[in-house]
């Protein structure tokens, strides 16, 4: 972590060349607050894709480059790396079904991961979810005195 001191920054910092930019085009609003894709041409979809890795088929890609079958009938789930978070990679050591009927991969560090297909009414279609659950603090803080 790097800290850069700038005690008088609010009033008297040196101004550098901040980008000079044209006004943005207006998004096209549709019902429900969603928007149609009226994206500016200056940044293309491939440019965005370079920051978001692609997903593939009926497999779940793992951070180590291997793949395992997607669970719970998921089609085209996002790679697990995208949602693994800031945790060291931990290999899959088992497969379990929860009491809710959802299959999960169990990882060596106690984490779980899975994929699911869910219907999103607002989109009018099913989407794939890639889900990860890492164990957090074993003793979470107390519930509040008034229980709210």
């Amino acid at each position: 972590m790097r800290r850069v001191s700038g005690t008088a920054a609010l009033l008297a910092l040196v101004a550098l060349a901040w980008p000079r930019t044209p006004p943005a085009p207006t998004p096209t609003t549709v019902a429900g607050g969603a928007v149609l894709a009226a994206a500016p041409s200056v940044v293309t979809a491939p440019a965005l894709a370079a920051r978001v890795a692609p997903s593939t088929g009926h497999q779940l890609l793992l951070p180590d480059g291997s793949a395992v079958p997607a669970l719970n009938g998921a089609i085209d789930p996002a790679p697990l790396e995208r949602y693994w978070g800031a945790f060291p990679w931990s290999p899959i050591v088992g497969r379990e079904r929860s009491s809710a009927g959802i299959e999960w991969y169990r990882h060596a560090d106690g984490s779980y991961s899975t994929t699911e297909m869910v219907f999103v009414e607002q989109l009018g279609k099913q989407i794939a979810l890639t889900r990860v659950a890492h164990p957090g603090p074993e003793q979470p803080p107390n519930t509040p005195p008034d229980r709210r």
Partner: protein
Amino acid sequence: MPVPKQGLFVVATLIATAQAQVNPFVLYPQDPERQALTCTSFVGRPDLSRAAEALVEFDDQQFRGIGDALGFHRIFGVYHWVADERLATVETYDLIIRIGASTGGPDTTPAGLVFRVASLTTPPSANPARGTWIMYDGFNIQGGFTTILSQTWYLGVGLPANPAWPATDGHALFRADLLSANTGATVGENHRAGVLGPTWAVPANGAPFRTPWTYVCGPFVTTPNLHMGGLDPTSNRLGAPGASFGIHGLFPDVGGAPRRDGLMLRFTDNLTPFAFAFLGASLGFALPQWEPGIIGSNHIGTSGQVITVGLPRLQNGVAEVTIALPGTIPTAMIGNFLAFQGVVWDPNTRLANWSNAQAVSF
């Protein structure tokens, strides 16, 4: 020092490669991905044991450009911490995104519900004790779920009723109470007086209401995160040394009776964790503007309006910049607000990305 043609300063070479990751944008005093959470007041639910949505408000007077990939909010999932009173019992929850109502607060009509995934569950466990799951629920929607920019919006989780909570079972969220919450919390948020609750409860049957705390809950985005933090050496509300990056950063107390808070900027990015960041501030937000070659939007204006507040290099996805030490922000700033924003640039892909912008109200 390379200087791209649009005048964006970048410094030297980055080591980072484009990571196939996302950033959780969480408004909380500490960074739940990288810091030990000593500031959590309690684990709680939005409306006791009753069914309700726990929503985080993203007010466009406070934040702009969260998840702004191509001019709109692009949301790739929901991050939250589950406090489970009995891990052995699977918990059920929904993922919710709402737009704001014209009268303020979340729009609870069907038209206001723009995204809902119902009935997700926590993983299996044989452990009958209390515990925590850090949940990453990611969508595979090409380009993310897209919603409108420059509008107050709400994201969170919906919890079913659970009469067993908190005695023997149930799902709650990690929360940091405002000073005004009157819950007896010794740690939590540490803002100036008069701040409204930044989260909402939407009961299954009833009107929504503000809740005086922040949650460890937020959207997954591909934009870098910029958070402002307050520095108050007279307080132990954080439970540890450092800046408080939740509501304290939006509303520091510089009034001098007795506090004269300082200000810190924290910039995080999992996608380019060793990038250089170009950080600026201006006297308020500007209309969104696009810059060729930079993903996202500039929300704080052009070079004539912006002062540079730092050019740090991220280390493992983090850089912090002290903007003002405690006792140095003039009381003349009271009543004004500043807007902060930054850019990261990756020389490997030759792509730059605007962070979100955040206001600081004095």
